[in-house]
C-alpha cells in the first residue's frame, strides 16, 4: 500500500498560503479566537486533561480491585474515586468529546460554511466549560464526592459528607456550555448549508450532530433543574426528596434519568455519524440505506426520551410502569440494529482498505453490537432485576460508551487528523493502537459481564473472593487498554512536528471538508462550495467500486476555485 501512502503526503515544505493554524500565533489569538477550528482545538486540549484525570481514577480502582480486600484505598477514597471517574468521564469527557472536538471542527466544513452561526457563543461555551472544569477539579482538591455520578437522594442531600454542592455546581455549569454549543450547531445546520446542500444530502455525521444537539437542548435543562433541587435540599434544607419531611426520593430518580437516558444517546449518536463517514470512505461504497440511517438517528433521538424508567425496575416502581418502559426499551433497540446492519452491508461489494481509522470503525461495530445486544437483557424486566446494579450493567454501558464512543473518537481523530493538523500520523503505529484498543477493551470489560451475572454488585470496594479471578482479568486488560489510549497521544504529538505533510484529501473521501486544503484556511474555503449531489459518491450511481484503482469518486461539492 506504499503507493497509496505516498499519494497522501506531499514534500515537507511549509504550506504556501496561510492556514488557520498559522493565521496568528500569539496566546491571545488562541484564547480570543472565534474560529470554530481553533475552538475545537481548545476543547481538545481541555478534554484531554479530563480524560487523563478520569482515567487516573479508573486506574486506581482497577489496581484496588485486584484483591478482594481494601489494600490501596480506604472505603471513602474508593467511593470518591468512582464518583470522580463517573462525573468527569460523563460530563467532562464523553458528552463534550465528539461534538465539541470533531463536531466543532467539521460541522461548518462539512456543510460548506465559513464558521458556526454564532462564533462568539462558541468561544463562550468553551469558557463556561473551563469554569465548570475548574469547579470539578476544586471538588476533587476539596476532598471529593462520594455519591456516585448518579447523586441518588437522600444519600446526596442528607447523608453524604463529600463536596456534593461543588460537584453539582460543576455539572450545572457544564450544562450551560452544552446548551450553548447545541443551540449553535442547530442554528448552523439550519442556516448555513451551502447552496444545493439539501437535508437529505447532508453527510450522516452532520445528521448525527444535529440530532444530538436537539437532544442536548431538550434534556439538559432537566438536569439543571434536578441539580437545583439538590441544592435547595442540601444547602437550604428545603425538603424535596427527604421522605421524613414529606419529600420523595424516587422523584429524584425520575428527573435524573429523564435526563440521563437521553444523555446516553448524546454520548453515542455522534459516534454513529463518525462511523458512517469512516466505513463508507474505506469501503469505497455509498452508505447502505441512507434514508433509513437518517430515520434511525431521529427515531433514537425521539424514543430515547421515553425509556428512562428502565433504570428503575427495582426502585419500587409499579408493575405497569415497568412493563411500559420495558416495551419502549425494546423498541428503541430496533433503529440501533438497523444502523449495525447497514454499516455491515455497506462493506458488501466494496473495495475495503484497512487503514487505522477503518480498524477503529470495525472495532466499534463489533463492540457496539455486543453493548447493544446486552441491552436486550437489561430491557427484560426479570433479567434486569437480577443484573441491575451489578457489573453486568457496568460492562454494558462501557461497551456502548467506551468500546463505542471512545473508539469512534479515536477513529475520527485518526481520520481527520491530516485535515486538522496538515500532518499524517504514522499509519502502522495507528493500526497497532487500534487493534490493541479492541482487544484491550475486550479483556477489560468482558469479564465484567460474567461477574455481574454471577452477582458481583457494582461500586464495591471490597468483594467476595469468588469474584477475584474476573477482577484480575479485568485489571490485566486495563493495562493493555491504558497503553492503547496513551499510544495515539504519543504518535499524534510526534506527528505534529515530524509527521509528513498531508494532501488536501489523503483518503480520497467525498465530503466537503476534503475539498479544501489541509489544514484549511481561516475562512475554510477559498471559494464558497456548491453542492450538486448527495454524500458518499464513491462510485457511479448504478455501479460499484472497481477492485483496485481508487478512482473514480466524486466529491460532494463542485470543485472549488482556488483564490488567486
Amino acid at each position: 500500500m506504499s503507493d497509496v501512502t505516498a499519494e497522501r503526503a506531499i514534500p515537507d515544505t511549509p504550506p504556501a498560503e496561510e492556514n488557520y493554524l498559522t493565521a496568528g500565533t500569539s496566546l491571545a489569538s488562541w484564547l480570543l479566537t472565534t474560529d470554530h477550528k481553533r475552538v475545537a482545538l481548545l476543547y481538545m486540549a481541555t478534554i484531554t486533561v479530563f480524560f487523563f484525570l478520569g482515567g487516573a481514577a479508573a486506574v486506581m480502582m482497577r489496581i484496588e480491585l485486584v484483591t478482594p480486600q481494601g489494600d490501596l484505598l480506604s472505603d471513602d477514597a474508593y467511593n470518591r474515586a468512582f464518583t470522580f471517574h463517573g462525573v468527569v468521564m460523563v460530563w467532562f469527557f464523553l458528552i463534550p468529546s465528539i461534538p465539541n472536538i470533531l463536531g466543532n471542527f467539521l460541522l461548518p466544513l462539512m456543510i460548506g460554511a465559513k464558521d458556526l452561526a454564532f462564533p462568539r457563543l462558541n468561544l463562550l461555551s468553551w469558557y463556561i466549560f473551563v469554569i465548570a472544569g475548574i469547579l470539578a477539579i476544586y471538588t476533587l482538591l476539596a476532598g471529593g464526592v462520594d455519591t456516585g455520578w448518579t447523586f441518588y437522594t437522600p444519600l446526596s442531600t442528607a447523608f453524604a459528607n463529600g463536596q456534593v454542592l461543588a460537584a453539582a455546581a460543576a455539572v450545572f455549569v457544564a450544562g450551560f456550555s452544552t446548551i450553548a454549543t447545541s443551540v449553535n450547531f442547530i442554528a448552523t445546520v439550519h442556516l448555513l448549508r451551502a447552496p444545493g446542500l439539501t437535508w437529505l444530502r447532508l453527510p450522516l455525521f452532520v445528521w448525527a450532530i444535529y440530532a444530538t444537539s436537539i437532544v442536548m437542548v431538550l434534556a439538559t435543562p432537566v438536569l439543571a433543574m434536578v441539580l437545583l433541587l439538590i441544592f435547595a435540599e442540601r444547602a437550604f434544607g428545603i425538603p424535596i426528596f427527604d421522605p421524613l419531611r414529606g419529600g420523595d426520593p424516587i422523584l429524584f430518580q425520575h428527573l435524573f434519568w429523564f435526563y440521563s437516558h437521553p444523555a446516553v444517546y448524546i454520548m453515542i449518536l455522534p459516534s454513529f455519524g463518525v462511523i458512517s463517514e469512516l466505513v463508507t470512505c474505506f469501503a469505497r461504497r455509498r452508505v447502505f440505506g441512507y434514508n433509513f440511517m437518517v430515520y434511525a438517528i431521529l427515531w433514537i433521538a425521539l424514543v430515547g426520551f421515553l425509556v428512562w424508567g428502565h433504570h428503575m425496575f427495582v426502585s419500587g416502581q409499579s408493575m405497569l410502569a415497568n412493563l411500559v418502559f420495558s416495551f419502549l426499551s425494546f423498541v428503541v433497540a430496533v433503529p440501533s440494529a438497523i444502523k449495525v446492519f447497514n454499516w455491515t452491508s455497506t462493506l458488501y461489494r466494496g473495495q475495503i482498505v484497512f487503514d487505522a481509522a477503518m480498524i477503529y470503525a470495525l472495532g466499534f461495530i463489533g463492540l457496539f453490537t455486543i453493548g447493544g445486544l446486552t441491552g436486550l437483557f437489561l430491557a427484560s424486566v426479570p433479567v434486569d432485576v437480577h443484573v441491575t446494579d451489578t457489573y453486568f450493567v457496568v460492562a454494558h454501558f462501557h461497551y456502548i460508551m467506551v468500546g463505542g464512543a471512545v473508539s469512534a473518537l479515536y477513529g475520527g481523530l485518526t481520520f481527520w487528523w491530516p485535515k486538522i493538523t496538515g500532518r499524517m500520523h504514522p499509519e502502522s503505529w495507528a493500526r497497532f493502537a487500534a487493534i490493541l484498543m479492541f482487544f484491550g477493551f475486550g479483556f477489560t470489560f468482558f469479564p465484567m459481564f460474567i461477574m455481574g451475572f454471577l452477582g458481583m454488585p457494582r461500586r464495591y470496594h471490597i468483594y467476595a473472593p469468588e469474584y477475584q479471578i474476573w477482577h484480575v482479568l479485568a485489571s490485566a486488560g486495563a493495562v493493555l487498554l491504558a497503553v492503547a489510549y496513551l499510544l495515539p497521544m504519543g504518535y499524534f504529538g510526534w506527528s505534529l512536528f515530524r509527521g509528513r505533510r498531508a494532501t488536501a484529501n489523503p483518503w480520497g473521501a467525498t465530503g466537503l471538508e476534503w475539498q479544501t486544503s489541509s489544514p484549511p484556511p481561516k475562512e475554510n474555503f477559498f471559494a464558497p462550495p456548491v453542492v450538486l449531489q448527495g454524500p458518499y459518491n464513491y462510485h457511479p450511481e448504478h455501479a460499484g467500486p472497481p477492485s483496485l484503482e481508487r478512482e473514480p469518486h466524486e466529491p460532494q461539492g463542485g470543485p472549488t476555485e482556488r483564490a488567486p
Partner: protein
Amino acid sequence: MSLALWPATASEQAAHIDGLFTGLLVVTGLILLLVAGLLLLFCIRYRRGTQAKRGDLPEFLRRDVELGWTAATLFLALFLFWWAGTLELRASMAPPEALEIHVVAKQWMWKARHPNGAREIDALHVPRGEAVRLVMTSQDVIHSFYVPAFRVKQDVLPGRFTEMWFRPTRTGEYRLFCAEFCGTQHSRMGGMVTVMEPEDYASWAAAQPQEQDLPGEGEALFTALGCAGCHAPASAVHAPVLQGVYGRMVHLADGRTVRADQAYLRDSILQPQRDVVAGYAPIMPSFAGLVDEADLQRLVAYLQSLRGEAAR
C-alpha cells in the same frame, strides 16, 4: 477456588429467569455471530484488490432487505418483550400464605424480624419450599436487598415499604448484598441467607433469643406509667403531643430554646420542672426514683422512635 460461570440457582424464580436468560443468550449470540460473520466475510472477500464481483447491488437488496430486517428486528423485539413481560407478570404477586419477614435496612446493616419475633442481623434464615415475603424499609438512605442465588433484588426505601418474595428451592448458604450504593461502607453491607429444611427452620426460629425491642417495651411503659394519660393526642390534660419531639427545637417557658436531644428527654422525665415547655403548666410529676435506668432507656428509645411517624 472453583471457576463458576453460572450463579447458584436456589429459588423458583431463579429457574424461570435462567430460562429467559438462556433464551436471550441464544438469540443475541446468533445475532452476534451473524454480524461478526458478515463483517469478516465482507472484509476478506471485498478487500482491495480481490477479484470478487463488485458493481451495482441487486435490486432486491436495496429496498426489500432493509424493510425486511427492520420488520424482523421489530418482531424479535416484541417477541422478547412478550416473553419477559409474561414472566414478570406471573411472578409479581406473592402467594397469600407466604411467610412474612420484616427487614429494616440502615447504614450499613440488615435487620430482619421473623413472624415469631426472632431477630437477626446481616443474616436471614428461611425455610426451603415455602414462599417468603419480605416487607422492607430503610431508616436512612436507599439500599437494595439482593440475593444473586435467588435472582431477586429490590430497593429498600426510607419512608416507604417495598416488598419482594421468593421461594427457596435448595438448602445452603447464599450471599446477601446491598446493591444500591449507600455510602462509606456500602461494600460491607451484606450477609448470608441460609435456606433450611422447614423443620430445621422452625426449631431455629424457636431457639432464637427474643432480642430486646427497646422502643416496643418503652411504648408499654409509656402507657403503664400513665404518660399516655396526659400525652396522648386525645388526652383531656393540656400536655404536649410527643410525636416528632426528638430532635426538634423546643421553646421553653423561661424564653430559652433548646434542642430536644436524648439528654433533654431524660431530664424531662426525671426533672420536668427544670425545662418547662412554653405554653404549658408545670404539672408533669417527676419520675425520678420511679423509673430505673433501663426503663428510662426504653422510654427515651420509644420517644425517639416516634420521630418518623409524625412526619409521615
